[in-house]
């Protein structure tokens, strides 16, 4: 198992936002996380990515406990994420956004910078361009990130996350606000990434996208995991149906 949570919990003033959740994501897997609004999916991701402190339980990466690590330390270890609602560096260019994403893999260049050099053959800059090419934003490299259309911003965020060469890529509702052709392209991108060996954890409301991309799906409701299994198994689960649609009246 590459990424695991064990009995992970977080309370907000008496409300169990995440309630003893166990997850296990295998390397190279595409793992989906779904659940109604307010189920605790994003809170769970915030716990894993170090943005929120857990009240109980643990997070393991490749067998090592990483629960208390700060977000930047987790990125160095190979966990990258995108944010629900997109958090780009709006005042920076598209290119610089991706370059910042590479921060974890770069060594300090302050001293080197003090002497201006001509040579521009910089593997990191080339890699950044390559990522932009991959998500179809190469032509907009010089634009300010804040100027992009919403769908482009989402793709930029993914490119930025990929710049750190993650082992696990967590995507928080990447398809929100996308039209079908855009989400189709997103699905292809995710498939390609999985084929390259990157593990993906996908949170989505677009249940079709999740079922079509992920090998394994977990369902959260009120902070608890109520189902886990293959897409087919989850789709058939009565508990899941109840969570989304409410308990059916027995006539």
């Amino acid at each position, binding site marked *: 198992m590459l990424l695991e949570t064990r009995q992970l919990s977080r309370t907000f003033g008496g409300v169990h936002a995440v309630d003893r959740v166990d997850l296990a994501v295998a390397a190279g897997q595409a793992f989906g996380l779904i659940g109604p609004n307010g189920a605790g999916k994003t809170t769970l991701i915030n716990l894993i990515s170090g*943005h929120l402190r857990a009240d109980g339980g643990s997070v393991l990466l490749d067998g090592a406990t990483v629960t208390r690590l700060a977000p930047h330390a987790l990125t160095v270890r190979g966990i990258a994420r995108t*944010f629900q609602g997109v958090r780009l560096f709006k005042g920076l260019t598209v290119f610089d956004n991706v370059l910042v994403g590479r921060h974890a893999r*770069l060594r300090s260049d302050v001293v080197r910078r003090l002497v201006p050099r001509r040579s521009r053959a910089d593997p990191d800059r080339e890699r950044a361009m390559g990522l932009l090419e991959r998500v179809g934003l190469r032509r907009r490299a010089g634009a300010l990130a804040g100027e992009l259309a919403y769908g482009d911003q989402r793709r930029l965020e993914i490119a930025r996350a990929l710049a750190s060469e993650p082992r696990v890529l967590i995507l928080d509702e990447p398809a929100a606000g996308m039209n079908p052709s855009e989400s189709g392209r997103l699905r292809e991108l995710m498939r390609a990434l999985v084929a390259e060996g990157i593990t993906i954890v996908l949170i989505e409301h677009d249940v079709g996208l999740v079922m079509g991309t992920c090998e394994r799906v977990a369902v959260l409701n009120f902070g608890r995991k109520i189902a886990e299994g293959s897409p087919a198994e989850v789709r058939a689960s009565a508990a899941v149906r109840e969570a989304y649609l409410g308990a059916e009246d027995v006539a």
Partner: protein
Amino acid sequence: MDAIADFLATYSTTFAIVGINALLALSVWLTLYAGQLTLGNAAFMAIGAYTSALLGRHLGAPFPLALAAGAVAAAALAAPLGLTVFRLRGVYLAIATLAFGEVVRVILLATPITGRGQGLNGIPPKTELWHIYLSLAVVAYVLWRVQGSIAGRAWAAIREDEVAAASQGIAVRRYKLAAFVLGALLAAWAGGLSAHVTFSIDPNDFAFTKAVQILVFAVVGGIPNVLGPVLGATVFTALPELLRPFKDYRDIFQGAILLAVIIYLPRGIVTLAELRKTRRLAEIGAADVA
């Protein structure tokens, strides 16, 4: 040539103050660039001024050493302050540095060795114009080069969105601390230079008003590049000299201009050049100081 020499001689104090204010503005610019508001640089300036003056007077320390000691003293105080405060939200830095500034002023007023309210007089005029401008040139050059470096981009990312920056592998607290401590160093260095130009210092030179003025230089000048704070310092130092009859109203003008800039042109005057290129005021205005 003579005319230039004469000109320099007459206005040498003004040029000196302009240079020192530019250094101070750059010290605040650095932390603003990382999205942090510090109001303590007047206090760090005071620490640099008093430390270097006292070391020179009582221990006969050579000038560069005295300046360096002042800078180190400021950094030594900035570090624990920063470590405490950068764990918390941004507003706490403003609070802590404002409080720090007041307390430094009060301690200076109360301590005998600093001359209390009378301050220190008869500080030898060791600072030459070239000291100031060499410092300024070096600092401006280094900051300009650092801006385009990995650290510079990290600071910009923190300014734009701290939460996202952390997820890119940026150790946010460490970078904020670095900007803050470096800023303190710079302010103290400028303070040391300043003390040896103005011959006398007293605690009220480094009060709240000073801290806000330094902020005015940096914010009004502009955040996008090092030219901004230098420009801001020059304009705001030179203008009162030229408009002597209005000198009393300087603070009022500065306050009004700062208010106008932060509301309508938050990235400062240097963005006016961008404005001509792109004609998109709202955009430049929207990509904010922090």
